[in-house]
């Protein structure tokens, strides 16, 4: 492989990894609160569609991003209502969100198939962008990629260093302990389910506004599911999520690269690797001790009620 190919593969990995990154960070926040939202695919699709439609009609990209996040957040609110207030099975509710999102976006999106809208363009950061190779790969990208760079350390700081992050982690790990200290378990779960949904909407918007600037039905192509897998891969840690998202993004780009370079690894095998990694990670994190050490949200998927304990 020559230098050009490496540069294009790595920068492709970052571009392909960015929608995964947003969705994964969002789902980490949601799951850290103890709510399992399997509806990522649906929320990303609604984000992608809304972003494209708003950008097409108004020409305002940032308004499009905000609208995408709001709509996905709205879907997440529905999931929050069903799983926190009505205490229904979170898996079922999440799957319903997937079908709702893909159905609605497909239906409303028919009018937008094959049209053009404004999209994000690359913006070279002064100084940093001039560094040879690295600058080209990392700092000559579109603004949403930069937001991705920033959101990871911010979420990490928030989770581990602030009072609010502590509250969030406590609610997911030991809701009864959090409740006993006056933390409103339901409120926290609502907030982070909605925030998580909004971030997945941002991931969807990245697809239709930057990655492949157009609207195609079901254009997320399973990225919502990969993000759910990535959360486990990352052991609910935003820094590892970044590694995982770019890695998985890289694998999807490499499929084409390998074909071009005529290296005989079938694409299907490449596609399998992320899941293989995840299974290995799951093997390692299955022990109680590891779970406690990394703060795996042990109340994940379990509705909380004060009186229902033993």
């Amino acid at each position, binding site marked *: 492989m020559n230098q050009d190919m490496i540069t294009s593969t790595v920068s492709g990995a970052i571009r392909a990894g960015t929608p995964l990154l947003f969705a994964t960070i969002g789902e980490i926040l949601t799951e850290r609160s103890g709510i399992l939202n399997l509806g990522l695919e649906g929320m990303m699709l609604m984000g992608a569609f809304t972003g494209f439609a708003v950008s097409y009609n108004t020409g305002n990209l940032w308004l499009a991003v905000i609208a995408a996040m709001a709509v996905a957040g709205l879907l997440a609110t529905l999931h929050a209502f069903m799983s926190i207030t009505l205490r229904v099975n979170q898996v079922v509710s999440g799957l319903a969100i997937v079908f709702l999102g893909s159905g609605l976006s497909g239906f409303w999106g028919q009018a937008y198939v094959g049209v053009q809208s404004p999209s994000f363009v690359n913006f070279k950061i002064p100084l940093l962008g001039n560094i040879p190779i690295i600058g080209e790969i990392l700092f000559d990208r579109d603004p949403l990629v930069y937001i991705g760079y920033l959101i990871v350390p911010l979420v990490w700081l928030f989770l581990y*260093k*602030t*009072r*609010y992050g*502590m*509250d969030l*982690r*406590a609610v997911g*790990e*030991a809701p*009864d*302990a*959090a*409740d*006993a*200290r*006056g*933390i409103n378990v339901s409120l926290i779960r609502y907030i982070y389910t909605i925030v998580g949904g909004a971030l997945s909407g941002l991931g969807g918007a990245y697809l239709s506004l930057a990655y492949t600037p157009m609207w195609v039905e079901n254009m997320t192509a399973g990225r919502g599911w990969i993000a759910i897998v990535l959360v486990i891969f990352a052991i609910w840690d935003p820094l590892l999520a970044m590694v995982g998202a770019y890695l998985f993004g890289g694998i999807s780009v490499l499929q084409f690269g390998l074909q071009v370079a005529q290296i005989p690894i079938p694409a299907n095998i490449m596609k399998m690797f992320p899941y293989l990694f995840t299974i290995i990670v799951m093997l390692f994190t299955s022990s109680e*001790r590891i*779970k*406690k*050490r*990394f*703060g795996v949200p*042990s109340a994940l998927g379990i509705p909380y009620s*004060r*009186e229902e*304990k*033993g």
Partner: protein
Amino acid sequence: MSDVVLRLSGIVKSFPGVLANDHVDFTLKRGEVHALLGENGAGKTTLMNIAYGIYKPDEGDIYVDNRRVKITSPHRAMEYGIGMIQQHFSLVPSFSVAENITLGLKEFGIFPKMESVKKKIESLSQKFGLDVSADSHIWQLSVGEQQRVEILKLLYMNARIMILDEPTAILTPQETENLFKTIREMVKNGASVIFISHKLKEVLKISDRITVMRHGRMLDTIPTSVADERILARKMVGRDVLLKVSKKPSSPGREILEVENLWSRGDKGQYAIRGVDLKVRSGEILGIAGVEGNGQRELAESIYGLRRYTGRVVIDGEDMLPLDVTSRIRRGVAYIPQDRKGLALCGGLPIYYNFFLKVFDSPNFSFNPYMFNPSYLRRGAEQMVKDYSISTPSVDLEAKYLSGGNMQKVVLAREISGSPKLIIAVHPTRGLDVGAMEFIYKSLLRERNKGVAILLIAGDLEEIFTLSDRVGVLYEGEIVGYSKPDESHIEEIGLMMAGVGSIDA
């Protein structure tokens, strides 16, 4: 009275099928250690969970410093200075000690200043003899250390009323000593402590006053200075005679159950049964008395095959060691466990299923276990419902909707209908009303008269006296002695239950 810091008055709390607290009154004085003594299921924890805001009482009032208060959540309880250490700790495993202690405190900004917290924790832990490092994470700590973190949490928040729920259950003797030192230090600093336990020795050692609870009722409150183990043991497990069931003299036949040198470990890994020998003959009820937690459950589970053991369990001449539960059932062992909801019944299945749970693979039952006929099962079930006067609208009702008494009747009907040779009954009437109790007594006696051997393990002495033909006393995993089941021997039995009795067989 100005020195009463907490008063619970007329507390009533019921759960489906169980009246956990029945008009309970309780007072805690300033600066005392007040022990709340009673068997498991007596309603101690429920009562304290009400004071701590986890349960809402159905009736009754709570007064803190003689003011009536509504405690709607543990957080609200904390605001009144009430803190509780539950048996299951409320700690976040991945957090450090300091983080657990600061969790939820409003005095901190967005970025909590851990240094000042750590300093305060260290000074508290020194003052009260709680040896914990503020930087360790909960997942690294032993349960004893975790308990000290829970105590630190209460001290950090200046709790004045501290409720400790069975704090010594998880501690080694040395750790228990240290806990007692800490409790004394806390009392010296103005705290009042409620100490929930069923261990007589500890209660006598640490408390100033003792309140005994039984069957959800407050029995008596006495100063520790006038109490001793014998009095407490009797109060805890004795019952005012509610019913008398007439009993013919027994005519024991051949030996059905023989247990020799049985050793078995409890859930925490230490030996709970230490070399038990016992024999039960057909047509005889052997009652095993003892204060809860002396190996009762482990004994029953070993004989039934649910728990690993060493030693011999021989049923009708056959060594059971290589046989699993199913094989033991086929050889005529019936089991009425203490946990009827969790172990004996499938709450989510209809009643008629529950009747036949144990015979689905029975070769002599006239149905195909792979394609059984529900209407056939229902017919059988309806007969059993009639025979055992189980009150239910239908045999299709899910078992969890039955009252405690009717649940137990379903268990009894199923176990007896298998025509067992041996019945192991553990606390068979716990939490039941008098009517259901009488029914169960009569059923067990009828089986005994038919020639079944029955091993009755119960906390309630009255129950043991009513049913059994001989009484053995279990203390710390050993049968410390046998006695006759009548009132004249109650003194002797009480002493043995307290571990101070004779070892005569």
